[in-house]
């Protein structure tokens, strides 16, 4: 009886998290002053196994949970040290087995302000410290208490990331950590069980940590390839009980590794292709998902 029932900013359980990997909130790169960049990315993710607490299982009433996502992004350079990034996604989630109705729609709008705090060349190591502040809010009234099919958590969020980027010749390392605060959400029911029965339609979602490591080869800001590691941690939350539905306030943790890159397509015309893939290698109350994305960005200087 798998009937029903989130994002690290987007969505953890269904694993469809494809932020644009070009001058985003998780890299140390900046757009030039009065440059504008826009792009779109198509991505897919899927899982067949998920962690119920620590227990990795399949569910024949779901088969595979598949997610398709189209993301749109714009990035504006106020200065070469201060960028503003806007993004949103359209998401479709469906199962390959069972009877549960698919969910689709526009998810959240995300806004990031990225600012270089400090940069210095230390013995050939170009080192910079960057702060990225973000807010997000749902832009449609999607169903949040219908996991794993819900397309998002329904929370408004505010986040703060600190990032260090070190480059030596063409090689780089980026380390960052972000704290994501999430608002309470409203669900369609007026009572629910976590580790006790709560008589409310409001749900407290745990706040999140996201730690990120990126290591790669970057001959120019528009041409790079990198290895990525991502650690997502829910600060609190509870485990899915055996054979229960997932719930938005579950403790959702995951470790993902991946590869991504960017390549300038036509030299000096501002067109670049981006792409990447990730695999969830460890998790708690999330799907063990594999995902890939690919997209096109265009940069224009006023």
């Amino acid at each position, binding site marked *: *009886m*798998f*009937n*029903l*029932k989130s994002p690290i900013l987007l969505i953890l359980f269904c694993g469809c998290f494809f932020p644009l990997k070009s001058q985003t909130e998780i890299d140390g790169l900046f757009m030039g002053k009065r440059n504008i960049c826009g792009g779109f990315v198509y991505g897919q993710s899927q899982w067949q196994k998920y962690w119920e607490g620590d227990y990795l299982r399949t569910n*024949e*009433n779901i088969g595979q949970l598949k997610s398709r996502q189209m993301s749109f992004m714009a990035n504006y350079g*106020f*200065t070469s040290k*201060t960028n503003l990034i806007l993004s949103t996604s359209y998401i479709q989630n469906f199962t390959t*087995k*069972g*009877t*549960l*109705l*698919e969910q689709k729609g526009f998810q959240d709008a995300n806004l990031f*302000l990225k*600012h270089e705090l400090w940069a210095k060349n230390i013995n050939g190591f170009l080192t910079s410290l960057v*702060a990225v*502040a*973000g*807010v997000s809010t749902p832009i449609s*009234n999607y*169903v949040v*208490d*219908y996991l794993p099919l819900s397309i998002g958590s329904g*929370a*408004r*969020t*505010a*986040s*703060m990331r600190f990032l260090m980027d070190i480059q030596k010749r063409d090689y780089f390392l980026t380390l960052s950590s972000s*704290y*994501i*605060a*999430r*608002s*309470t959400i409203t*669900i*369609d*029911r*007026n*009572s*629910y*069980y976590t580790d*006790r*029965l*709560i*008589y*409310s339609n*409001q*749900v*407290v979602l745990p*706040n999140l940590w996201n730690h990120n490591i990126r290591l790669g080869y970057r001959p120019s800001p528009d041409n790079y390839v990198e290895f990525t590691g991502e650690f997502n941690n829910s600060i609190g939350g509870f485990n899915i*009980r*055996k*054979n*229960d*539905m997932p719930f938005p306030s579950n403790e959702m943790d995951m470790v993902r590794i991946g590869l991504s890159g960017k390549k300038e397509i036509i030299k000096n015309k501002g067109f670049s292709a981006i792409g990447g893939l990730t695999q969830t290698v460890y998790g708690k109350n999330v799907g063990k998902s594999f995902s890939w994305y690919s997209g096109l960005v265009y940069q224009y200087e006023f």
Partner: protein
Amino acid sequence: MNFSRFTYNLGYFFIVAIMSLGCNKEINERNLSFAPLSPSNLDTTGGNWLPILLSNNEEFALETPEPITSQNYKLELQEVRSIQAKNELSELNNFNYWSAGSILRWNEILRELVAKYNLPPYENQDGTYPIPNPNNPLAYPLFPFANPPYAARAYAYVSAAQYDALVIAYHYKQKFKRLRPYQIDPNIKLKGPEINDFSYPSEQAVIAGASVAMLSQLFPGEQDFLQSKLLDCINSRLFGGYNVRTEIEAGLKLGKQVAQKFINRARQDRAGKAVGTPSDWQLFVTITENKGETPWKSLESPARPPMLPLFGRTIGFLIDTTEVVNGRPTPPPSTSSEQFQKELNEVLEYSQNATRENMRVVHFWGDGVGTYTPPGHWNAIACEDFVQLNFSEIRWARNLALLNMAMFDAAICCWDAKYFYFNPRPSQMNPKIKTLTGVPNFPAYVSGHSTFSGAAATVLSHINGLKSTQYNAMAEEASRSRLIGAIHYRSDIEVGMKMGKSVGNKAVSRAKSDGAE
């Protein structure tokens, strides 16, 4: 524009945003702000109301309490004074919680246990399913699987036992006329509203005794939890200045004795055999095929045996088995009929045009896995209204007993029809039908939600006539949620609603003659 200042201002804004979103996480829980119970009518004649199982209101004897002039009683007053003198915050919070009403709180405890145990067992490696074992409740799969029929029965037994126990208690209260400690000892402070009836036996202890005895049978893995709630309940009465210890002990004993009578009944009501055997399960298929109809099939993978297929034979409180069979509804449209096709297409339409509002309605009334079930939902609705109506504890108990006996018997009638006709769910007949909630693992005709809701709205409309229109509208919405959720045909919900109302009326008839009106 100075971008540096701009940036810092924005940074400041983000920090404030993080603080306000991430740190302010208070939610309003409706049941934690209920006012203390202050009955508008003490129902001092409650001892003469018609009990459910008891033959008379002195079926269990109660010792005459010692006179208030006795040394022992003085020591008991001393105990209350010393508990009050400690003046601990935890005691005060506990008192405030329980002062909203004992029937209310034990009903909430039951709802919580139902939600906790309402999880279908996970499959074995070979694709079969384990069956929970009452003799080993803490081994997986936990006993019980508190699905809707199990829950309906649990709510009924607990409420009925509480009510009978209070009938006897109210009788003895009037017989012994023991004053409350705060009325005798001016040094004992009354912590809540004045309740000027008598205190021997303590009605809260009677309720607690009956509740814990019943719940220990229904949820045998929860002994520790139940004992801790029992202790909290008792302490709140001492702390509040309402009772001394012997009044509580007498009440606990009485409640337990009455509950034992219900436990004995429950052992023989046939519900224990409702799971059936593989040959029972196969028989439903054969009988249905012989009628030329398509038999129900589990839509779960691996296929799960049908939920409590013999529950329709359970002996209810208001309707006997013969009446269940005689009152069985006419058959649903034949799976090969034009009418069936029409109804199937209607479900497909709802599946393909699932609006956000329909999703809201379906999920609001879903009451599926991991919830307190539809009967629990109606208990919550009833209780949230009753707290406004200032009933005495015995009237609370009587009203919830009427509600829950009606829903238990509605479940029996509904389950009887489901397995007599054994008809398939819409998604079985047309796999294109995707559902807005999980498909329950039992036949479609008639809809359980509709039957429960019809019964509940009928009883609640009688108890609280001013809200009759709202109760019926809620029942209609709950019923309709199953059609627009694409898991039931129109016939299921319409006939289910009718069935529920008819069972509800049995409870109303009882209500009119039980001496409480």
